[in-house]
């Protein structure tokens, strides 16, 4: 087996405003032809920086030392023309977000041809033929027509296929895939992983896969490199790493991955008048002039009892966030009925709803942007208390704020810090503290952990469960991750294209899914175990063929 890339003692240092930061520290790894090597680690572990160094994509503030042998040639220190020749031909890159990796003003065919023409002579017709050929290879249906499509006419999964086709078209020895499926839905993710596997087997390409998702690693990787704080802590084959992880960090990482467990038993919820009741709820967004309005939520009915956690699962565009926002009064209800704490939300006025707001807490997806950057954490947590007249100003609210920070396991001193001085997990805790400040009877959590690393996510979920037990609030927990929802929810509702396709307890929905969509969703979720995942992959294939 030939060694396509060999990284030896790589060190990368960044110059920042706060002084030099060492991002990659003495990293050595390699990839052979026809092999998928996964680099796993949490944000800031240096996995992306390592990969970007291979094709010289680091910003000029970075200083690199060590050696990267790409096909036997050291690429560190290459500049301009030599480096450009390397890109594409020796190594190509697939980016995380396919919608931003494609230029919106050119057709996908043009963009494919652009890469070809940069590395060889092609006539227009030849380039087009080649583009169609590669679109066929990555499984785009109807490639003769799609080659003239603009990126916005394609779905996220198709766009990622185009990006992979662009990488493949130059026949590279190495493809670097930087979180290639993170921005995609699970069902689409499964298809893209299949495609990458096909690329490896068919073209004999070496693939360096950068990811934080252990399920993806188990599904695709042959060998795994675990990185932590810029250092490689463990290298092993996928089989060995998952069955017998050696380094404590790897063990912790694997333990933190949420898993579906249908045998979980939950105490029954006492029957009581529901806090939220939706009947045939319809939410439409007005279209542009001359266009039909868009129906985001279409005839959805559900209810949440006091003290109950309802998990709302669905892919992007399924309307799950819209429902959460409608309950919080951020989006107008356009049809049906939605009763929140005894208030009909259809046509409600902000003035009538304002007193109800103290009963509702809201946790947003991105903890980085849900805090005003100019207020300290204590001031931000005190906001609801001040607005609802429970405290005169931030100083008067401080004792209560300290209590709240303690409840979410943050040190009191963190109250005087600014949001950007906290890590993602700490910020999401502060966000929980803010939403609990008025002791709400209902909490809406919109993907509260999807922006966090696995190990941080595990701790935040634990905290959420504890707080729910302690305060006894009802909650709507919105997520795209079945395993996360399963950990917290008393009941699970599955949304698909604005419709509620299945609802029931975790054991019912995940143990014996009835709707084909739920079945596919469940089968698409990769599990962190290569052997089990191989079995599940076959199941999913059978399911897809049955469709």
């Amino acid at each position, binding site marked *: 087996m030939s060694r396509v890339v060999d990284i030896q003692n790589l060190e990368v240092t960044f110059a920042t405003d706060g*002084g030099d930061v060492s991002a990659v520290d003495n990293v050595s790894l390699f990839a052979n032809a026809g092999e998928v090597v996964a680099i796993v680690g949490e944000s*800031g572990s240096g996995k992306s920086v390592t990969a970007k160094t291979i094709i010289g994509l680091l910003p000029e503030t970075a200083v690199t030392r060590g050696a990267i042998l790409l096909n036997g040639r050291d690429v560190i220190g290459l500049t301009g023309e030599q480096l450009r020749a390397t890109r594409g031909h020796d190594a190509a890159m697939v980016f995380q977000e396919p919608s931003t990796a494609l230029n919106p003003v050119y057709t996908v065919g043009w963009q494919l041809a652009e890469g070809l023409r940069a590395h060889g002579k092609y006539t227009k017709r030849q380039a087009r033929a080649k583009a169609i050929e590669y679109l066929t290879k990555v499984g785009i249906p109807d490639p003769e027509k799609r080659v003239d499509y603009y990126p916005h006419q394609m779905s996220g999964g198709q766009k990622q296929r185009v990006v992979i086709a662009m990488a493949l078209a130059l026949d590279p020895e190495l493809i670097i895939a930087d979180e290639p499926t993170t921005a995609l839905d699970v069902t689409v993710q499964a298809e893209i992983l299949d495609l990458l596997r096909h690329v490896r087997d068919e073209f004999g390409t070496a693939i360096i896969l950068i990811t934080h998702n252990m399920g993806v690693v188990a599904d695709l990787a042959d060998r795994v490199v675990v990185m932590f704080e810029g250092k490689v802590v463990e290298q092993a084959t996928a089989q060995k790493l998952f069955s017998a992880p050696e380094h404590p960090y790897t063990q912790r990482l694997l333990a933190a991955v949420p898993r579906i467990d249908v045998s979980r038993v939950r105490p029954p919820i006492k029957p009581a008048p529901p806090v939220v009741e939706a009947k045939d709820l319809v939410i439409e967004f007005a279209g542009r002039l001359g266009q039909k309005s868009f129906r985001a939520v279409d005839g959805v009915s559900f209810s949440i009892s006091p003290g109950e956690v309802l998990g709302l699962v669905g892919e992007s565009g399924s309307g799950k966030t819209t429902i959460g926002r409608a309950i919080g009064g951020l989006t107008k209800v356009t049809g049906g009925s939605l009763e929140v704490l005894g208030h009909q939300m259809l046509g409600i006025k902000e003035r009538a709803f304002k007193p109800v707001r103290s009963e509702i807490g809201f946790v947003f997806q991105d903890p980085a942007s849900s805090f005003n950057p100019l207020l300290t954490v204590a001031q931000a947590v005190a906001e609801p208390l001040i607005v609802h007249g429970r405290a005169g100003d931030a100083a008067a609210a401080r004792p209560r704020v300290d209590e709240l920070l303690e409840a979410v396991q943050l040190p009191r001193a963190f109250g005087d810090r600014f949001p950007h001085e906290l890590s*993602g997990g*700490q910020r999401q805790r502060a966000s929980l503290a803010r939403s609990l400040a008025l002791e709400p009877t209902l909490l809406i959590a919109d993907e509260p952990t999807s922006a966090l690393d696995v190990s941080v996510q595990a701790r935040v979920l634990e905290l959420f469960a504890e707080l729910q037990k302690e305060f006894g609030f009802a909650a709507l927990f919105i997520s795209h991750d079945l395993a996360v929802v399963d950990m917290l929810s008393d009941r699970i509702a599955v949304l698909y294209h604005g419709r509620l396709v299945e609802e029931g307890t975790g054991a019912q929905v995940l143990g014996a899914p009835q709707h084909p969509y739920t079945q596919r969703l469940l089968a698409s979720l990769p599990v962190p175990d290569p052997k089990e995942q191989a079995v599940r992959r076959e199941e999913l294939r059978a399911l897809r063929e049955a469709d």
Partner: protein
Amino acid sequence: MASLTGPRGLINRLPIVHQLRQSVGLQRGMLIAGLVITGLFVLTAILAPLLAPYGYSTLRDEDGVFGAQQPPGGKHLLGTTVGGYDVLSRVIWGTQTALIVIIVAVVLSIFLGVFLGLVSGYIGGWVDRVLVVIADGVYAFPSLLLAIVAAIAISGGQSSFWGGIMAAAISITVVFIPQYFRVIRAETVRIKSEAYVESAMVIGSSAPRIMTQHVLRNATRTLPLIFTLNSSEAVLTLAGLGFLGFGIEPTAAAEWGYDLNKSLSDVTSGIWWTSLFPGLAIVLAVLGITLVGESLNDLADPRLRTRRRADVAPAPTAAASVVPGGSLTDAVDLDSLEARS
């Protein structure tokens, strides 16, 4: 993390000082050059009564009349103008006029512009549309023409010291309000969709509270930049008005544009000192303020800001400090925090 408290941290957080410490290389040179020129400009304006050998409208001293178009040297270091004024004194007194016009024009336009932009961006709807159309309308006029019209309307063209200054300042204000309006409105529209504004809404905060607490404080980031750029534009507009004859009478105040106008015929007859020094004064004042503005702009944008190359021996990551309200580049720090949390 620990560097947030203590006097050092506080000094670093002051606007200009913070940027000065942040800058390196050419950007630092530009910023320092701009600060020095601007500092000299302001100092000259304040100390004009002490620095200038004569008053701005003085035509004679105890030895008699100065005489017109006297070459530099002797009693008149930079010569005298065609009207018989001392050039050096006129240039020095001119800084005072320029500074007052800058201050009045910017103060008048900044409050109104920011308020309108905030309301227009936050409330949206027809209020927003009407205001945007008006702002666009003002943009469509050549700004100098607008300033001339305003100057005539306010003072009938010529007037006393304060009358002339207010005429110039207000006419500049008319042109500037739409600029502040636009910038603040754009920021407001962006910030309105940020999660922290939504989280303030679900808490139940009132609209005025959200506007002042959350939107306004975050929307003012670009103000120092427009402030400096507009200041230099104010100098130019004032000079332009003076040059065209809509400025301030020489007996009311010294004004560079007026002096340039009067020296037009001197240029062809080899009398260089009457036009060179007022012209140089305008160029330096504008250059200094623009340099400060441009460097602030570059430093505020992490993509344009240059940094020192990393040293060969990297420092430990834990020593990294963070400046509140500082910059977007904290991302690197956060990532390392993330890993250790």
